[in-house]
Structures are given as C-alpha cells and as structure tokens.
C-alpha cells in the first residue's frame, strides 16, 4: 500500500479563453504523489498554482491530460461524481479558513459529514474527536467571530479532516496568520503527516514550503521538481 501511486497527473494542460485569446495557465504538468507524502507546491502569484489546486481538488477539470485519483480518471466524471470525490477524498483548507459565520465551531466541522449523509449522533462524535485533535476541545460552541485567526484555521483543519479524506489540500494555509501562529499551524501539519496523512500545500512562501518533505516549484504554469528539503 505504501508505494501505490494513488495520485497521478500526466500532461495536464489548462487553458482559459479570455476574449479572443486562449491563456495557457497550466502546461504539461506532471505530478505524482504517494500516500503519506507531504508535498509543497511553491510559486509566485499568477503562476497557476491556484488553478492546479482546483484541478487537484476536483473543483475544476483539465483541458488536456490525464489525472487519476485513486484509480479514477477525473476527466470522465460528471458534476455529481466530482462532488462525491470532493466529499470522500479531498479535505480543503483555505487561506481565510472560510468558516460559516452563523455556525459554531462544532457545526462547522460537521458540515462535510452532512453532505456525506452521516447521521446526527455519529457526526457529532466525529466532529468532537477532530476538534480535540486540533486542540480546540474547549472551544466547540464558539462562533468563528469569537475565535482567533489561528483557532479559526484549526477549526478549518478539523473540518477538512473530519471526512477522513485521502488528501489534505491546503491553499496558503498560513497566509492570513502572523508568523508565530503560522508556525503552530505548520507544526500541526507535520504532526498530521507523521500520522500518515497525505498533505498537498500550496504557497508562495519559501519558509512555509520548507515544512514539507518535498517541494515542487511552479512558474508560468510549468512544474519543476525542487528536490526534497528536510529529510526526504
């Protein structure tokens, strides 16, 4: 199981039509991720890294190329099946945590389970366990506005993890945080990775990217392997 490539991108192109011109956002992207990896995609803004994340997260489909996620060709899936993949295989973490302001922390974490059709009691149990895991056992009934930025991002991480997805997909997870809080979040990421969670993190910050075991660079829609930092 350890070495099975369950995530395989080959020759991915993504074009957008802007007026009369086609803009090539991604060009011939090849990327393989093994289970349990902690990968960082490092690139400046406008490099196509957000588009790449959308395609990885099955929010978007490539114009050309082959993307296989857990043995399924994503290009062939319809909207319903994409939603199903997002529900089961992907846990999103956004820059601004993106919690629903009217729901408390626990309810926010429960949200993905609602769409997965998990019953009330089971949902509550799993959400509570996950909030405990990110160190917010005593903040479950707080609204997002009553939490600090770091705590909000922890809730978002719990929400991403609660469905037990194959991949944790984070887009600038520390972008809105101060350095110290950012380091704490990165510490949490490393711990999760140590627990065999597969993490793909997109960032423009070299220092943040350095937390990953493997870093790839993306510039002008093209990927270059940056080699391992740390112990890879």
């Amino acid at each position, binding site marked *: 199981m350890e070495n099975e490539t369950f995530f395989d991108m080959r020759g991915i192109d993504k074009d957008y039509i802007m007026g009369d011109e086609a803009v090539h956002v991604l060009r011939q992207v090849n990327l393989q991720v093994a289970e349990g990896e902690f990968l960082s995609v490092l690139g400046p803004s406008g490099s196509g890294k957000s588009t790449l994340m*959308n395609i990885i*997260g099955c*929010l*978007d489909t490539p114009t050309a190329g082959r993307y296989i996620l857990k043995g399924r060709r994503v290009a062939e899936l319809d*909207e*319903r099946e994409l*939603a*199903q993949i*997002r*529900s*089961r295989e*992907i846990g*999103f973490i*956004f*820059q*601004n945590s*993106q919690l*629903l302001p*009217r*729901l408390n922390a626990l309810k926010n974490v429960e*949200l*993905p389970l*609602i*769409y*997965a*059709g*998990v*019953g*009330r009691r089971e949902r509550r149990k799993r959400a509570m366990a996950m909030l405990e895991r990110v160190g917010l056992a005593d903040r479950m009934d707080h609204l997002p506005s009553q939490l600090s930025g770091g705590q909000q991002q922890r809730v978002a991480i719990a*929400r991403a993890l609660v*469905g037990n997805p194959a991949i944790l997909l984070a887009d600038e997870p520390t972008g809105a945080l101060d350095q110290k809080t950012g380091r704490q979040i990165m510490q949490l990421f490393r711990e999760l990775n140590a627990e065999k969670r597969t993490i793909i993190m997109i960032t423009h910050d070299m220092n943040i990217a350095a937390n990953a075991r493997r870093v790839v660079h993306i510039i002008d829609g093209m990927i270059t392997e940056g080699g391992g930092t740390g112990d890879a």
Partner: protein
Amino acid sequence: MLKRIRSALVMVGECVRMSLDNIRGSKVRSFLTLLGIMIGVTAVIALISTVNAVSGSLASSFRSMGVGTLTVSVTGSDLKTGLTAADLAKLSALDEVDGITPNVGLNVSSVSYGSTISTELTASGRNAYYFVLNGDMVVQGRTLKAFDDDNATPVCLISAEAVEAFFYGVNPIGEVLYVNGMPFTVVGRYEEDTGGGISAIFTGSPDIIVPYTAALRLNGTDEITSLTVYIADGVTSDRAKSALEDALDALFDFEDDTYTVTSMDSVEDTMQTMMGMMSTLLAGIASIALVVGGIGIMNMMLTTVTERTVEIGLKKALGAMPWQIQAQFLIESFMLSMMGGLLGVAMGVVLSMVLCNVLGAAFTLSGSAIALGVGFSAAVGILFGFAPARKASRLNPIDALRSV
C-alpha cells in the same frame, strides 16, 4: 438504496435547521418578504370564507322566507294586462293553493301627517291572507281583515320606521296618514322579524301596508301584476307550479309570455351560482397578491444566492452535491413562504370573523379555504424558489470561491 434515502433525510433535516438559522439571521428582511405571501393568503381566506358565510346565511333566509311559496309576475297580453280580484279568487280556489297574497306596489310621492311630510317611505297593498301567515309581526292594533279587502277601506298598518318618522311619543292607532293625498287611518303597527344584516334587503317589508284593493284604487287600476302564492300542505312546489300555470294559461287564453311563475328553489339556485362565481372571482383577484408575494420571495432568494456565493462555493468544495445546494435554497424559500402562509391563515380567519360579524352572517371556519391558503403558499414557495435554487446549484465553485 436505503442508505441514499437516509442520507437524503439527514440532508433535509439539516436544510430545515440551516434555513431557520438564515431566516432568523435576517429577521426584518425575512419578515418583509413573507409579508407579501401573508397578505395574499389573508385576502384569499377572508374573501372566500366571508362570501361562503354570507351566501350561507342568504340561502337560509331565502329558505325560511320561500318555503312553500311561488311568485307570479304578470306581463300580460294586449287584451288582458293583469289579474283581477275575480281571477285571484279562481286561483285561490285551486286544490294545490292554500292562499294568495297580491303585491301591489305603490308609487309613493309623499306621506304626510299633520305638517310632517316624508318622501322616503315605501308602501304596498296586501290582503287579509298575508296576515293569516304573518300575523305575529303585528305588535299593536289589528291586522287587515277580509272586509278591508272587499271594501277597500282606507286603513293602514305601519312599520317602526314610519312610527319613528311621524309618531314620536304619540300613539299612532287611530291617527290619519295621507298617502299621495289620500287619507288612511292607522289601525296597526308591525315590527319586522329581520334576521338583520344582508338578508333584510331581500326579505324587507314596506313601511306602510294598505288593503290591496285600496292600493289598486290609488293606482287607478284594478289589475294585479305581482303575487305570492302559498302552496297547500303536502303539495310539491313542482305540482303547484304546473297547476298554477294551467290556470293562468286559461286566464290568458293560452298566449305565450304573459306571466312567469318562480319558485324559491330556482331563485336559490341562481343565487348559489352567483355567489359561487363571486367567490371564484374574488379569490382570483386575491391570488394576484399571492403571485406578487411569490415574486418578492424570488427576489429575496436571488439576492441571497448572490450574497452567499462564497458559502455555496465552500459547501461545494466540502462535497455538497448540486441537488443538495438546490434543496437547501428550495427548502428555505418553501419555509419562508409557509411561514407567511400560516400567518396569513391566522390573519385571514380573524379578518373573516370580523367581516362576518359586520355583515351579520354566521361565521364558519372554511377548511377548504385554509387548505387553499396553505397549499397555495407552499406552491408559491416551491415555484418561485426553484429558479434561485437552480442558480445556486449551478454556481461554479471556483468562481464562487474566487470572489473572496
């Protein structure tokens, strides 16, 4: 399969909860939005149940007034323009007929007593038989007698209105009223047993009743053109009608179109049909308010979808299926509309109680009106929620998230 049903149920339950949260989160706006539906449903229920109540009480007053009677109205032929007293006697003699009351309308230009003059009273000629049936309405003095009919005695009975007009603090019996300049001695006073309200318009008696023969003399004719026939006990209205028609045919030498005989049954039928049409028409007008209310809901839901683009995108990223997003918005608009509908039902019931009270009709809770109101608001919620919900479900999650 079972699992899918279960997950759909989980989803619907959560949608209801989320909708309540959202509605509670923008109380003023939600209230203003559901106001439209509320007013529409109120109008539909109030109109339908009021019309129902009024037509019900009209029908019952018709029945009480018209049981066992036929109304004959004579247009006459060139040779014979009306019925004479002798003709009346012939008709009264029929086995199927218990008695006949002629109804001789008087064109009153003025009624005076001493120096008091009134031009607003109505007068009509009746006969002794009328008081055989309606004797208990006379509260003072005597009724008309057979010799009044025979001799056209200048006497009259007067209503409470006439007493009020002329005899404030005076005993009217024995006083003389001048109707169109002719003297009539007051011999009795009557009070009507009006059911009150609308039915009085249809059952109302004149203010002054004189012997019909005296009325004919005042009109300068001896022909009667309108009469009420009371059917003998145990005779059906149809049988009496055909016997009467045979007799009238003979009197008018079998000429066509010389008279019409109307039974109260047919009047009541016509009345019911009219009321039914009226109720449909009013409900139709009221439902315009419901459509306007529905558009209000659609407008709010479309605004909501735009405002909650990020939320929708986020939910999609978290694995929400298009149908789940659609269900959430549809349930929200459905609930908004239903809240308006239920408030409208309550208001409508109160309003129709008040209206019935004012109109003097007996209020009955119309289950069908309530069902209509609730059903309509549910339909409006789904119908007008559909487009916004669809729009939400089709939002591209990337575009939705990018607008952060």
